């Protein structure tokens, strides 16, 4: 009987280690820094995986490697984003353009944001759109900012992850 008790304990430990590993993977999404995989791989513990895999939802993903090239692209037209882009670890634009997929995306996002990991920063209401900003603070000054835009039949989520500040983003269009 002792053998089985020991076996059960060992299994519990393994399960716990597995859970801890998953938790570590989850937190590594926040702490990008040195631990991020340079080969553009991403762990499935990302809570946004469910949202990004939804039917009718399109995703634009820009990796750290690609963003890392941007500070050297000063010859591009328009406002130079090189400085901010260099501080980003990754960027996502998640959008749903049909009514049904927008509704599903909205529901999934609301559920995801209700777990308390993101804090609401600001809500900006326009004539035809509602924009919400959310912040998730990570370790080593890394953070994640979500901009969720809801229009009549469209939902768009822009997700920035990296060691930037709100001021960095604001400065891009601030009159000096």
């Amino acid at each position, binding site marked *: *009987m002792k053998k089985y008790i020991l076996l059960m304990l060992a299994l519990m430990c393994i399960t716990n280690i597995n859970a801890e590993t998953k938790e570590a993977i989850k937190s590594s999404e926040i702490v990008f820094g040195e631990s991020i995989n340079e080969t553009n791989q991403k762990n499935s513990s990302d809570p946004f995986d469910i949202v990004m895999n939804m039917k009718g939802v399109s995703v634009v993903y*820009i990796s750290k490697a690609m963003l890392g090239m*941007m500070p050297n692209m000063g010859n591009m037209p328009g406002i130079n984003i090189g400085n901010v882009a260099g501080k980003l670890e990754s960027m996502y634009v998640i959008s749903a353009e049909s009514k049904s997929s927008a509704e599903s995306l909205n529901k999934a996002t609301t559920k995801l944001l209700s777990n308390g990991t993101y804090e609401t920063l600001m809500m900006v209401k326009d004539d035809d759109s509602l924009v919400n900003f959310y912040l998730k603070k990570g370790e080593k000054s890394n953070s994640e900012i979500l901009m969720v835009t809801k229009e009549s039949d469209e939902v768009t989520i822009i997700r920035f992850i990296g060691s930037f500040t709100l001021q960095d983003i604001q400065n891009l269009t601030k009159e000096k």
Partner: protein
Amino acid sequence: MKNKDFQILIKKFYDGETSIQEEHFLYDYFASSDIPHDLEKDRKIFLDLYRMNDDVVVPQNLESDLNRLIDQLDEKDKKTKKINWKWAAGIAASILIVVSCSLYLLGSKNNDRELVDTYSDPREAYIAAQKALLLASNKLNKGFDQFQDVQNNLDKTNKELYKTFQK
């Protein structure tokens, strides 16, 4: 009486439908030495049953022997139960191992999924990033400007109130 009739009577006896007279009749029949060979087994059973009514000598230690036997059987039963628990624990542990391994492997499979850059051309990626960043910047500033407006109005109101109270 013919053999066939005896067989019918024997069947009736096994079914518990014979009368006492019929059973006596059967006893007499089986007690005689002249019976067919195929009824030998029935004969033995029948005679054994009827001999039970004779005086049987009860062994002296029968009660204590029986008690010991009951205790032994009870002990055996307990051991069997223990063995069953071990089996149950073993099966449960095996199921847990299989489930844990499956979950772990499934998890690993998902973890291996690659997320590939949408753009292979850095210029296209730059334009997309620029568009997203400027939109976010614009909306953030709009929000902060509105806060600033409210703040300015509050300051203005506070100053007016202060002036009024001063008078």
